[in-house]
Every structure is written in C-alpha cells, then in structure tokens.
C-alpha cells in the first residue's frame, strides 16, 4: 500500500479529477445529489483558493478548480451544506495566511454569500459571521474590506447595526488615514434612507469620537448624509 502521503495525494487527485473535471460538474449537480460524496471537500477548496491567489504558485492538482475554487459561495442557497465549512476556511485565511494577497482575497470572498438585496432570498447570519472575522483581524486593510462592502449585504438591518457599532467603537489608533470608524461612516452614507437616518442620529448624539470619523460626519452633514458621486471616469 502507498504511504499515508501517497494515499492523500491519490485521494486529492481523485476528488479533483472527478468532481473538478471542471467545477462545472459539481455545480451542475443538484445540491443534494447522490454523487455528493465525490465533490471536492471544503478543505480542498480552501487549499486551492489559497494557491489560486498566490502569485506564481504552482496550481498542481488544483488546476481543474481554478479560477473559482470557492465558487460555491456565489450560489450559497444551492450549496448551503458547503458554506459553513468554506467560510470557516476563508475566515482562517483572512486572519492568518502569511500572504497578504491571499488574506485580501479571502476577505473579499467572505462578502460573497451574503451579497444581495434585502428582498432577495438569502442566507441569514452572514453579517454575524463577518463581524466575528472582523474582530479577529488585526489588519486595518483586511478589516476595511468588510466595512467598505458591507452596504451590499442582503441583511441590511444587521449590516447597519454592524457599521454603527464600528463607527462608535473609537478603537483605531490616531494617525492612520481612513480608520475603521471613518470607513463605517462612509459606508452608512451608501445605505439609503436607513443609513442616512442612522448617520443623523450618530451626528446628533455625539457618539462618534474618532476624530476623522467625526470630521467625515461633519462633511456628510453638509450633503444631507449622502456620499458624493464618483462621477469622473478614468483618465489618461
């Protein structure tokens, strides 16, 4: 019999070659198909995702899964049985993978399953999950991904609550441009009437203590708490 390592390699190749003959094979299947036992595992997806997002990494056995090793996250309602494990794996990558690029990509993909409009069918608890990862991460750049894209989560109420908590947290050290609190104020301004209503309350209550966030709030007050449009296109 092969060694343990050899057996692992063969398992991986089988899983990837069969289910990954294109992730299309996987995604073409009904969510609870009898062939479920040959899908790539969440662990494999995460491993390939990290490779996919590492510049110059050899794809190896992952070549049939990339791009889009964790594509199931974009169809969470069909692959709900994967979402928990894949998100847990991405959360770990976002917090502790040694490559910054992988941490960023993981953070961005964590925002995928919950994206949508409040009226659309969506999974619940996604914002809570993101908040847990946000609190685990010590990197402003990674945390900024969660804050900046929070306005597009389907769980709008939870998203507003999250941003409100961040805006009033006053935890960012002085001296850094775009601290979390300021980003949260900015994100709230992109959350329609509800976001503006919260901004007005924050402004009037004086709960925002971070200086740059406070100044951003001052500025947005002059615009009725609406963000300025980025009206220009790219220019050479």
């Amino acid at each position, binding site marked *: 019999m092969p060694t343990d390592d050899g057996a692992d390699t063969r398992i991986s190749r089988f899983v990837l070659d069969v289910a990954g*003959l294109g992730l*299309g094979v996987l995604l073409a299947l009904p969510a609870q198909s009898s062939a479920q036992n040959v899908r790539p595992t969440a662990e494999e997806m995460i491993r390939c995702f990290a490779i996919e997002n590492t510049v110059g990494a050899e794809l190896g056995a992952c070549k049939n899964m990339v791009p889009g090793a964790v594509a199931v996250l974009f169809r969470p309602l069909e692959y709900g049985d994967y979402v928990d494990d894949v998100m847990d794996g991405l959360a770990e990558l976002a917090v502790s993978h040694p490559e*910054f690029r992988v941490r960023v990509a993981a953070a961005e993909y964590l925002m995928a399953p919950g994206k949508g409009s409040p009226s659309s069918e969506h999974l619940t608890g996604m914002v809570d999950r993101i908040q847990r990862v946000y609190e685990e991460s010590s990197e402003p750049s990674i945390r900024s991904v969660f804050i900046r894209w929070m306005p597009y989560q389907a769980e709008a109420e939870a998203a507003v609550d999250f941003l409100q908590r961040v805006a009033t947290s006053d935890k960012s050290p002085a001296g*850094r*441009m*775009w601290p979390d609190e300021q980003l949260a104020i900015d994100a709230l301004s992109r959350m329609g009437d509800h976001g503006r209503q919260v901004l007005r309350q924050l402004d009037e209550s004086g709960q925002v203590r971070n200086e740059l966030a406070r100044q951003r709030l001052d*500025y947005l007050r002059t615009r009725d708490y609406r963000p300025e449009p*980025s*009206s220009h296109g790219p220019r050479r």
Partner: protein
Amino acid sequence: MTVDVDTLYYDPPGEEYWTEMTLSDPLGQDRIRWLWFQGILNMDDLEIVRNAPPAIVCDTVVRGSPTTCSIRQEVAQTLDSATAVTDWKFESVLLGGRLAQVDGPDWAASWSGKAVQSGDVEAIGWSEGNQIPLHGTLVVNDREGSEWEWTTLDWNFHDGTGMVGCLIPHWNKFGPSDSTTLGVNLRASSCYPNSVEPPVVDTTGPAGFVGAEVPSGGPNGGLWYVASAQYSMDRGSVINPSILAGYEPDTLGKSDSNQCPDSLRTGPKKAAVVNFYQYNTVCQTLSLQPLYDGIYRHEGFGTGGQDNGHEAQRRFGALNPANYPAAAAERSVATDSASLDDRVRFEVDKVDVVITEKSDPNHILVNGNFSESVYAQSPNGHYNQRTVDDAN
C-alpha cells in the same frame, strides 16, 4: 454522474497491489456511469487515468477571438455523416460561480463563434441509430499586452492637489500635539479610500470597463465579457494649513513677541500677531521650505532615490503585473451585464487593496524624509524650538 476514463486502477482493500482494468475505447468515449463493488469502496481504492484525445476539438484562442469546435476526424469517420451531430452544448462555471450553459445547433459538423470563456463542449454523434456522447474542451486564454497593463502615464501625482476638502475639513493645529498630521496623500478627484480610479466600491459610479455581449450562435453566445478596461491613479499631497503662510494668526505673549519685528507687533501692548509661518520665517528668520520639501517627499517619492515616500511605494505596488487592475478585470465573464459589473468591481478591489497596502500606511519604509528644527507652540502658547521629523 459520468466520468471519462481510459484506465481504471483498483486497489482491493487489504491487498498490496493495484489492478489495472484497461477499457476498450475505439472512440475515446468509454464512460463509467457508476461502479458497483461489493463492500465499501473507498476513494483511495481508485485511481483514474484518462489519455484518450477528446472527440470534440476546439481552437484554443485568446478571449474575444473566434473559435471553431469540430469533431475529431477519427471520430467523425465513424458517424453516419459529417453532420450527424446534434445537441451541441457549452458548459462552464464562471469566475463568479454561475454556471454558463449555451445550447448549440443540431445536425452541424462544427460550432463557431466568438470565444470568451473556457469550458466543456458536448454533443451527440449519431452512428447507425446509436447516440454517441462526444466531449471536448474549449480553452480561452487571457488577453495580454498594453491594453491590459498600465504605466506611469496613467498615474498623476502633484504636490498640493489632494482632495482634502471631503476628508479633513478641519486640520489639527500644529504645535500642541506631538502627533499632529503634517501632510496627507489623497486621491485628487474623488473622496474614497484606496488608490485605483474609478473607486469601484461606489457601485453607483463607473467600474472602469466596457462590457460586451458575445453575439449568439457560437459556444459562448450570450455571455458578457470585458471588451476594454481602463484604470488610473490620480493623487496629490496636501500640507497641514496650520503651518502654511495663510493660516490665522495668534496673539503672542511678551517674551515671544519680543522676538518679532515691530511690523508684526500689531496687537494690544505691541503684542505680536503672527502665525506659525510668520513666527518661524520672520521672527526667527528660519526658512520652512526644508520642512515643506520634506513633507512632500514623505507623501511623494522620497529622498535621494531611496523611494521612501508613500507614492513611490504605491507605484511599486502598481507596477507589479499581478496588480494591474485592467488585467484583473480582463478575465471576468458573466451571464449578464449586471453580474459582469459585480465581478469586475470585485476583482479590481482585490488588487486595489494590495496596491494601497504597498503605499506603506504603517511607515515601515516611508520615513527619514525630514528632521527639521522649527519653533512650535507648546500647550501654553509659548513658542519653543523642537525637532520635527518623520522618523519611524
């Protein structure tokens, strides 16, 4: 589920050998629909090898170019006629996870059209009344070249042009605090974090690309892809106005006033009414230009070729081909225009965060641009000499 195989190796549980079961395969089309073994079949009991060339062959092209998928000659010869092929179908999982399926023609020897997405191509061949599943792969390579790169021509940076109004309407006055921000490096034409223009996080604004729908008829008909993309950086630096000439003056105490010429002692009891700039340049005849130059170097391109400025470091990040935003957008393909917009924003934001982090907001590399002795007000309002620097 079906799996194309040429050879199946079976490792009986408890045995030390692998058994090879070679399948007859005149058309390269043998398939195992499911294997039934008595007892438990573990994944590591199986190894599959597939060598047969595909029955369907497609031209490998770069995204946006025409391709033709046709039946491999050896296979076509076994069919009733060259056109005895029906149910052409293309299938692929797009980068955003959506399954793209395109139905093709019946009774056609080939299937042609513009290609934007790699994926599986299938069809049914007919031979003496029997249906033969045919399979192949369409490979589409990413576009490369100057259209998907960017250069310094796409990046603007000017001292004094940062869009400071939306971000820091009220600067802290320099002096009383040790941590007063003396300068910032900002976007010049929009008020968002990060670096790439347009700011893709503003989903009401442009995402920097032009999308196009593949004309119907070919394997990728109806899919949307990025026809062109253009991104830029447009930034500037700004100095804290409280250390510039135009800032509002203070009325100084007697000892500080004595350092100033009569022309500036316009307050009560001949108190000097001056700002930071005047106190240093007139009362102490100390030029502030070295400080201003140092701040601009810190925000810009650093000192003496050391690249120890934020913009220099940002551009190092932007110069890395792995961070080209147009290239990041290039491979996005979607089933509709709105999904394509989503995908592109997502991909561009990833590289934008990486580029921005390279600008060194934590001042690991960006430091050592100035260390100047100036006169600054202490909390009690008196001017004292102190050294201002950007040392880490």
